[in-house]
């Protein structure tokens, strides 16, 4: 991120949302709402005094609510730009109307409580969608405690516990009592491959990150025993299978093939009851901590984003590519490309590959001033058009416009014309025109008629 932020050709708009997308490939007109962060981006030096002194503490989203942040904060240490934002919901200036400690302390005079959202309207040649994913909310699994047990955590929470910059400074301890766990159970496919929970797909990354966690855990706490309940181990990537094998053999992870039916508390222990389908028996593990390998789901607002961009999405809210095999990066709206987990669960190498792909697609698009398009566009026979303009009204792209021409005898005449670069070739105008004077090239009435006659033979 730091590298991209330093590139002259890249402008990063953080804390911003796309409001509206108009136009077409090469000429997208995008309206972006740059939300008021209440801190002047230009003036702020990133010294950090403000968030050190801010009196309000709020659970940190980045630390999966295991640590705290302030009401004025930088979301995570490596954030770009390194400029804090004020959380209006919690800041005392907004909840109580007084405080302004940060403003008083700021040497750069960067705090501006009056700042308002800014609307940026600009033209862009292409759009890359990289909106990522949401983590599956495991609380719907009542059998795993439904969020009641403090020591049942998600994989990402464990990730924060392991992180040196995490809430515990890299010490792996139980959230409930701060003790080091001795026996840890991992449960895979939480919110993945589960038709009941509406997630029939495989989240792609959990097998590998669980294996990684088992390794890290063992490295941090050599005494720990890891038990992994799995359905199948999916490790089809390069060197992935060897990694899983090492996890078992070198790092002593105990893989148990079967699902967990119930977790309950006994004393300060969690009792995990499950099946070992290979041994065909019930197993019960006394665990200090349970880590759920929660799956990947589409962003909660992905459908709204899709509607703005005019791209389709599947039943789970992942954006749909133009073709699953032949055009996995393009979308049906030319000039809009997909990358990363907004399209489907992807791991890092896949994401990097698709991001590189999208970047190349954009670069290729921009390498020429002209582009070729599908010739499926409408055309108007103005000699028979009656100017009822019904076509104009149904055109979703505003591709039909009125123009004035001068006839040979000098008189002016108004007529309709199709902007070919704007027309997408849907043909709604054609069926709306009662006298067939607007026709979709490449899908004309004549062609359809011939198809029809041939089929009807």
């Amino acid at each position, binding site marked *: 991120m730091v590298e991209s932020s330093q590139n002259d050709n890249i402008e990063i708009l953080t804390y911003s949302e796309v409001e509206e997308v108009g136009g077409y490939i090469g000429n997208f007109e995008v309206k972006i709402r740059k939300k008021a962060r209440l801190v002047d981006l230009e003036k702020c030096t990133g010294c950090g005094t403000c968030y050190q002194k801010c009196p309000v503490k709020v659970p940190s989203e980045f630390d999966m609510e295991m640590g705290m942040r302030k009401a004025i904060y930088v979301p995570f240490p490596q954030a770009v730009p390194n400029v804090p934002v004020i959380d209006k919901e919690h800041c005392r200036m907004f909840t109580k109307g007084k405080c302004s400690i940060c403003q008083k302390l700021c040497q750069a005079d960067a705090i501006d409580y009056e700042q308002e959202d800014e609307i940026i309207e600009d033209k862009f040649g292409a759009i890359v969608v990289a909106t990522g994913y949401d983590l599956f909310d495991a609380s719907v699994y009542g059998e795993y405690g439904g969020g009641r047990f403090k020591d049942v955590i998600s994989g990402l929470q464990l990730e924060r516990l392991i992180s040196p910059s995490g809430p515990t400074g890299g010490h792996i301890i139980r959230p409930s009592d701060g003790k080091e766990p001795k026996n840890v159970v991992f449960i895979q496919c939480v919110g993945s491959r589960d038709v009941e929970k509406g997630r029939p797909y495989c989240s792609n990354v959990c097998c590998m990150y669980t294996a990684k966690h088992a390794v890290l855990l063992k490295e941090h706490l050599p005494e720990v025993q890891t038990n992994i309940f799995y359905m199948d181990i999916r490790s089809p990537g390069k060197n992935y299978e060897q990694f899983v094998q090492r996890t078992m053999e070198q790092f002593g992870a105990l893989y148990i093939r079967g699902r967990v039916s119930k977790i309950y508390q006994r004393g300060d222990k969690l009792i995990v009851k499950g099946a070992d389908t290979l041994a065909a028996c019930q197993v019960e593990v006394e665990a200090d901590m349970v880590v759920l390998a929660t799956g990947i789901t589409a962003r909660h607002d992905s459908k709204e984003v899709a509607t703005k961009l005019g791209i389709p999405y*599947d039943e789970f809210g992942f954006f749909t590519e133009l073709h699953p095999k032949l055009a996995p990066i393009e979308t049906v709206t030319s000039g809009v490309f997909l990358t990363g987990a907004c399209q489907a669960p992807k791991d890092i190498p896949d994401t990097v590959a698709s991001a590189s792909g999208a970047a190349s697609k954009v670069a290729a698009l921009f390498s020429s001033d002209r582009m070729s398009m599908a010739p499926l566009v409408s055309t108007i026979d103005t000699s028979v058009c009656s100017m009822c303009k019904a076509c104009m009204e*149904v055109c*979703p792209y505003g591709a039909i416009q009125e123009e004035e021409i001068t006839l040979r005898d000098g008189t002016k005449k108004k007529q309709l014309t199709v902007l070919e670069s704007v027309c997408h070739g*849907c*043909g709604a105008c054609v*069926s709306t025109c009662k006298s067939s004077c607007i026709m979709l090239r490449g899908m004309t009435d004549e062609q359809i*008629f011939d198809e*029809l006659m041939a*089929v009807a033979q």
Partner: protein
Amino acid sequence: MEESNWEPKVIGFLCHWCSYAGADLSGSARLEYPHNIRIIRIPCSGRVDPMFILRALQNGVDGVLVSGCHPGDCHYQSGNFHARRKFAVINRLLKYVGIEPERVQFSWVAASEGPKMAQVIKEFVEGVRKVGPNRLFKDEKKDGE
């Protein structure tokens, strides 16, 4: 064709982005649907002119299925909404003049709904089979004489 070995012949106008892709998907998923349907691909259900339907029936096709994206999912944003208005009146008018409702049907099938496409086609063909060969526009009399 002899009544006894008559097989319905139906035409499907399927939109490129959803229903056609849905039919494609049902094919690649090895789902079976009746071979009675001949599919004509169109860009959008909004492209469908009532003329297509009537002309097909006039030429002796036993049934016409029109299918597009679910409302809100149109690749062209609003094509299927406009189409739906037209289909609603076409549907009412054809019923009113005495065309069996089984012969002309409209459906929403998304690109991911391979099984639904197969099911819709299956049910449609069965419906057409039930009402029998299309004799609506048949005439014993020769033109002119």
